[in-house]
């Protein structure tokens, strides 16, 4: 009877424990990261003290609760982490490429639209090259084209530093998670195996591991003391976390400005390759595309400015003077040193003087206090506060400086620095520098190209007269004979500031007169040369920018598609894990009924034992 009491009581305890677990499961039905528990119950063997003669006939002395079991699936959890790392990579890449796409604008906005307006206004001007209003319009759209280049270039530069900043905060967040995991590892060493404390810690561990996997792909190993280690899942498998050491992540920059990833950033930093998945990988991918786009845009800006300036310089303006530069793309790039503690912003203006190729350093000394701006090669320097001037470069400083704050200033060219150099519409050199007049019936063709030829003396304009099929006489404005040249069709005759290529065979007596274009002469030849250069295969400026936009849009579209797919994969494996280890309320309700009935049955066992005892007493 004593045994039956014991058995009944052990049943009460076991079912009570199972009901508690069920209650806990129901309470946590919606708790993120909660793994369904079950009470592990086993039969108690017969206790020796109850008497030997019963030993082989009883079925044991009841039930006992061994511990709380987590319904944990290691394989599914690893799959969820892999999925999360891929999704984080694709989402990050897609997000930044989206930013890049909008920075480049559409056909109707930004640089593409500015190009369109520029070519429209230039072609409009070709129909009336001396019209001041058409010239003013072209100058205005040239200004907004330069401005669009500047805005786009600046936006790409800002995005580049935004991505680097995002990488740094990703690394910092990953480090926070790593430190939390290290704490959990310590807790696990002390927690009793099978205890609710251990189960709680393991829930937290799995939750944090999933978070960590969003930054870098990881591989988790458990050791025999219930603790765990985390490795990078990148083929080399460097440890991020062991029970004794936490290796934090760091983001740096190589000399070319490319972001780099460091391991063990606090103790013994060593550079490693970016892993293939995780948010950091996605940010790195987007950075690569962004950097390429920035370089491409800079090339386009420089090329456009150079070609336009070159052709413009070959023509003459309304005053009959040679064209001055239209666009400029030179400037100074300012890079703050990573460790600067102050909040100083630097503004640089140049006056077009030659800058030192190796660049400049700007360092603050709080002892004096003063800023020192020096050429990197050490050949010149200047010191002061507020504003410094060196090599025609004005450096303005705003904000609070701290000792040792340092900036590197590098002369550079590119879209961000693009600007219009002209403000008078009459200065647009739309006319060719020389006009060629041929005698009526001139049998041949003449093409003039502007250069620095100086073959002819005397007073311009010069007249080329064919005195024989194979002889040209050149006379000046005063009919003084300057030179006599042998002639063959297709040859180039050097002049004064120009060369004249004559095709075909002029007849004897035919003449060509080359004169400098007078002021106010209506001619659109130079403008047409400017327009034509933008039309050729190599220099299709508008087309090249369109290609850049299409390339980025395609990359973004591809990234979006990948992000969608990896989101579905991640969602499926997360769902699989949630279904395997999450709480189902119907199941818990069924368990509740089952355990309640078991509990009630156990009370009946005790009642039965009591009745049996009473019966025995009644005999006496």
């Amino acid at each position, binding site marked *: 009877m004593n045994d039956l009491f014991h058995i009944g009581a052990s049943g009460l305890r076991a079912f009570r424990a199972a009901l508690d677990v069920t209650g806990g499961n129901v309470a946590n*039905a*919606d708790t993120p990261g909660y793994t*369904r528990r079950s009470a592990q119950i086993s039969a108690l063997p017969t206790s020796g003290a109850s008497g030997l003669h019963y030993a082989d006939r009883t079925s044991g002395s009841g039930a006992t609760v061994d511990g709380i079991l987590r319904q944990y699936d290691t394989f599914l959890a690893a799959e969820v982490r892999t999925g999360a790392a891929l999704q984080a990579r694709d989402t990050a890449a897609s997000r930044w*490429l*989206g930013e890049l*796409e*909008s920075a480049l604008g*559409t*056909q*109707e906005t930004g640089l*593409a639209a500015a190009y*369109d307006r520029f*070519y*429209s206004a230039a*072609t*409009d001007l*070709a*129909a*009336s*090259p*001396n*019209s001041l209003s058409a010239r003013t319009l072209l100058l205005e759209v040239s200004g907004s084209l330069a401005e669009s280049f500047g805005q786009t270039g600046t936006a790409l530069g800002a995005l580049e530093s935004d991505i680097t900043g995002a990488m740094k905060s990703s690394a910092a967040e990953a480090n926070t998670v790593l430190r939390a995991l290290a704490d959990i590892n310590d807790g696990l060493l002390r927690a009793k195996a099978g205890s609710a404390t251990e189960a709680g810690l393991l829930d937290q561990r799995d939750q944090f591991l999933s978070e960590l996997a969003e930054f870098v792909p990881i591989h988790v190993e458990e050791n025999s003391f219930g603790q765990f280690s985390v490795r990078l899942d990148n083929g080399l498998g460097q440890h991020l976390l062991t029970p004794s050491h936490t290796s934090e992540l760091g983001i740096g920059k190589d000399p070319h400005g490319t972001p780099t990833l460091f391991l063990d950033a606090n103790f013994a930093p060593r550079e490693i390759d970016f892993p293939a998945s995780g948010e950091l990988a996605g940010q790195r991918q987007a950075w690569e595309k962004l950097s390429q786009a920035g370089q491409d845009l800079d090339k386009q800006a420089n090329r456009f400015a150079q070609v336009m300036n070159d052709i413009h310089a070959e023509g003459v303006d309304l005053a009959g003077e040679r064209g001055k530069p239209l666009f400029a793309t030179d400037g100074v790039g300012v890079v703050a040193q990573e460790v600067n503690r102050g909040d100083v912003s630097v503004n640089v203006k140049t006056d077009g003087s030659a800058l030192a190729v190796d660049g400049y350093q700007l360092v603050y000394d709080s002892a004096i206090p003063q800023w020192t701006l020096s050429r990197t090669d050490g050949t010149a320097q200047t010191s002061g506060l507020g504003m410094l001037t060196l090599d025609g470069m004005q450096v303005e400083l705003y904000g609070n400086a701290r000792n040792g704050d340092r900036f590197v200033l590098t002369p550079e060219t590119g879209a961000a620095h693009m600007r219009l150099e002209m403000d008078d519409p009459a200065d647009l050199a739309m006319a060719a520098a020389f*006009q060629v*007049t041929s005698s009526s019936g001139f049998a041949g063709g003449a093409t003039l190209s502007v250069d620095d030829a100086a073959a002819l003396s005397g007073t311009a304009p010069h007249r080329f007269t064919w005195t024989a099929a194979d002889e040209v006489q050149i006379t000046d404005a005063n009919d003084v004979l300057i030179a006599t040249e042998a002639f063959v069709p297709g040859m180039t005759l050097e002049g004064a500031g120009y060369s004249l290529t004559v095709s075909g065979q002029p007849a004897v007596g035919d003449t060509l007169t080359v004169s400098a274009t*007078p002021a*106010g*002469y*209506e*001619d*659109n030849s130079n403008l*047409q040369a400017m*327009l034509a250069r933008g039309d050729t295969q190599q220099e299709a400026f*508008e087309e090249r920018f*369109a290609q850049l*936009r*299409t390339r980025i*849009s*395609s990359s*973004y*579209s591809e990234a*979006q598609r990948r992000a969608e797919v990896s989101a579905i994969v991640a*969602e499926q494996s997360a*769902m699989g894990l*949630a*279904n*395997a*280890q*999450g*709480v*189902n*309320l*119907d*199941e818990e*309700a*069924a368990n*509740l*009924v089952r355990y309640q009935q078991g509990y009630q049955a156990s009370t009946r066992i005790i009642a039965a034992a009591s009745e049996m005892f009473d019966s025995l007493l009644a005999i006496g």
Partner: protein
Amino acid sequence: MRIATSSWYRHQTETMLDKQAKIAGLQEQIATGRRFTSASADPAAAQRADTIKRAISDNDQALRNSASVTERLQASGLALEGMSDIMQRMNELAISASSDTLSGDDRRTIAVEIDQLKAQFLQLSNARSADGTYVFSGGASGTPAFAAQPDGSVRYEGSGKAIRVPVGAGNLVAAGDAADSFLVRPDGEGGDTSVFDLFDQFSGLMRAGDPDGETPEQRAARHAGMEDMLVQLKSSTDGIFDVQAAQGSRLSVLESEERRLEDMSVDLEATRSTLEDTDVTAAIVDLERYATILKAIQASFGKVASLSLFDRL
């Protein structure tokens, strides 16, 4: 398959959110009229649409230049018509001035008319287009083509050729003709002579005879002069006709080019629309479809969510 209660709820929520997002996307397509707002939604179509937009913009530009050239050519066309009318009148006067019976008064009347005609002709040859350029001055379009000199003669002061204007597809059309190509010719003595010298010659001959009666020599000179005058007038008139014809054919080329550009823009716009614009019918059908699905999900969600074993305990 075992399903955790929380993940069932989450899955249901996400399915509904997904359908709602699709419905919102379709609504935006219908509201904006655009199939996509960012090129990445369909890079290939966006790239083609952008190329087409640039082509349409180029066409619009070419049409503007074409209109500008047409305007200049029409301005010079009107002047040329006036010139040929004057030539016609000169021809009539030269015929009547050849008559034997011509009194001194008649000759003076003719001389006065010739002087007036010359002034009119000068005005016509210095015609300007709406943008203020002198249409017959060639490249020196800022200065009048002809200017009266202190000695009363008229000299050509233009130079070079008129600008050639791009009017699309690499076509260049000359926006005018310099007067030196048809009103001025070499005089055979190293200098130039212009149509204005004809006027002076004519009026000189009319004023040469004695007012009260010509001598036989004077009459003979007038006859010979008028014969020569008729020949020279014909060649000058032919020169004007040639330029009129050349400009007329340029104008008709421009006109047909304009029609081609306009037709092309219509076609391009249609292609752009199929690439970029929302197919409203298809979008509304899709919208209905997703709305039906969403309703079904919502209804079934309510049914299934109300099934709980706890309710039966």
